[in-house]
């Protein structure tokens, strides 16, 4: 019997979609174990959201309010989570794996002396035991994990489950949290500066990864293919980190999220953070030497070969075909 505590996150005045995704898992686990779902809503002036969530999958909601919780603060949130676990008797805490979640969840796990499983894409309860699944080695392998402790905190990959659409019954209860002095102070959120390269409008994006090899090859190999298709050039994170191309070319969760008619990934293995930024493209072609590269999981069409042979030949053929 599991008491599952959902730790919610508020963004721009509403509950993030990821809270409902986590609610799906929480409801399934509670049903499979004959347990219950409870939730924590943290913020300032968020009582209405607590009420809303209690009816839409959150069950009994603990509402923690205070100035320290008005913006993301890992120290303060961790204290609120500990208080909510004590008040709810939860043995499983689920948190959306967002930038706030990954900052707070492990801290809360340590404060609870609990087991921690990061970025799960699935959690299942069967025969009284709970199994966690997550990706390791940047998506190249999957790990199945079990816990042997009385409390577990798990963060849940966003977009991995379907949002909960049913209803739930529950009450909202105020939770007193003694936050005390904090060494962490939220200052502000700085929005992204306007992008010199706007990939969101391109019908075709040709992106290169580490496999392109050198910054020069982007100009010699990747850009010409993008030009031949009247499209734009993009890049994966390692390329930008290495300083080969500026940040404005980066496709992924920390760069631009794109949805072109055609996305051609060249020498990109397909780390989760990249896939999040392009997997809803209408059609995806992947060219990579490694047949096991995760990029082939999201691609419609794949070529297992050296991009430096295929891409120039493709550019030439397209140019010829256009006449």
């Amino acid at each position, binding site marked *: 019997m599991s008491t599952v505590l959902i730790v919610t996150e508020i963004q721009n005045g509403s509950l993030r979609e990821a809270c409902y995704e986590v609610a799906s898992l929480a409801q399934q686990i509670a049903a499979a174990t004959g347990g219950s779902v409870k939730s924590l809503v943290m913020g300032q002036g968020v009582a209405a959201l607590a009420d809303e969530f209690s009816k839409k999958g959150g069950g009994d909601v603990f509402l923690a309010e205070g100035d320290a919780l008005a913006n993301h603060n*890992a120290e303060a949130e*961790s204290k609120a989570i500990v208080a909510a676990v004590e008040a709810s008797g939860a043995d499983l805490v689920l948190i959306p794996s*967002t*930038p*706030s979640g*990954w*900052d707070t969840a*492990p*801290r809360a*796990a*340590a404060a609870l002396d609990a*087991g*921690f499983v*990061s*970025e799960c894409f699935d959690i299942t309860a069967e025969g009284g035991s709970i199994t966690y699944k997550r*990706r*390791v*080695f940047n998506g*190249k*392998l*999957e790990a*199945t*994990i*079990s*816990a*042997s402790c009385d409390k*577990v905190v798990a963060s849940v990959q966003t977009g991995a489950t379907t949002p909960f659409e049913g209803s739930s019954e529950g009450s909202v209860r105020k939770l007193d949290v003694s936050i005390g002095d904090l*060494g*962490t*102070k*939220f*200052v502000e*959120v*700085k929005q992204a500066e306007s992008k010199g390269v706007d990939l969101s409008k391109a019908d*075709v994006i040709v992106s290169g990864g580490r496999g392109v090899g050198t910054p020069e090859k982007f100009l010699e190999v990747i850009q010409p293919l993008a030009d031949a298709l009247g499209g734009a050039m993009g890049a994966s994170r390692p390329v*930008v*980190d290495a300083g080969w191309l500026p*940040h404005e070319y980066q496709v992924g969760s*920390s760069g*631009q999220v794109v949805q072109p*008619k*055609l996305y051609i990934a060249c020498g990109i293995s397909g780390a989760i953070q990249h896939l999040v930024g392009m997997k809803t493209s209408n*059609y995806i072609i*992947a060219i990579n030497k490694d*047949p096991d590269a*995760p990029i082939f*999981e999201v*691609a419609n*069409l*794949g*070529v*297992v*070969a050296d991009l430096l*042979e*295929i891409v120039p*030949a493709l550019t030439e*053929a*397209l140019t010829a*075909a*256009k006449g």
Partner: protein
Amino acid sequence: MKIMVCLKQVPHQDARLDINADGTWIQEDNIKFEINSYDTYALEEALRTKDAGEADVFVVSIGPDRVGQALRTALGMGADRAIHVNDDEANGSDSLGLAKILAAVAKQENPDLIFMGLMSDDDNSAAVAPMLAQLLDIPHTTAAVKVERSNGTVTCDREIEGGAHEVVELTAPCLIAVQTGLNQVRYASLKGIMAAKKKPFDVKSVADLGLSGQVGTGAAKVKIDRIAPPLKGDTAEILSGSTAEVVAGLVSKIKELGLL
């Protein structure tokens, strides 16, 4: 100022990932290892503080003999000394176990700042840094892409979604887990590598840290039961053949999509 940098040695990014005999991790024999990419940026950030004439930088790593190489590389890059927690009793530690070991080292050393990477390239958990901060009861931030120090406070930009940054101010002592790309990482110079041979290199056991019985496989709260390549779902249709055949296939698909 004293700065602790936590490093993890991980399989090289291009290493072959074969599953080991009991199916719980990869086969580590005969593959190359390197310093976790995120951690190289953490070390660089610490060394930049040292270059400004302000810091004593020590590096810490947990693992078997091979990890000595990662620490010696860090010394060659400019760290002042190394601590290697080399003890079979640490094997099989989960994230919390590793955080406990690093916390014990930190309690012996009392650093003003701790730098480490946001996550490791092998386990990808991004868990040890916030756990270590909690165990030490100090503030932390993760995914830092900019770090500025001034009297007793550290102001960081942390990367959130869509290119936005969250600015946080931490009171030292504090822990900063860095995102890749926040600086350009230096290479060890030949002079640095020669100098590294004379730098202090301490090896510690789990018992030296007062943690006997509290870390390692036996104390792990979570463990990997199985590791495997992802189940192939709707995987891509693969075009094969000569370059000319493959290119012809791609061109015809692009035509079909109405993009030519």
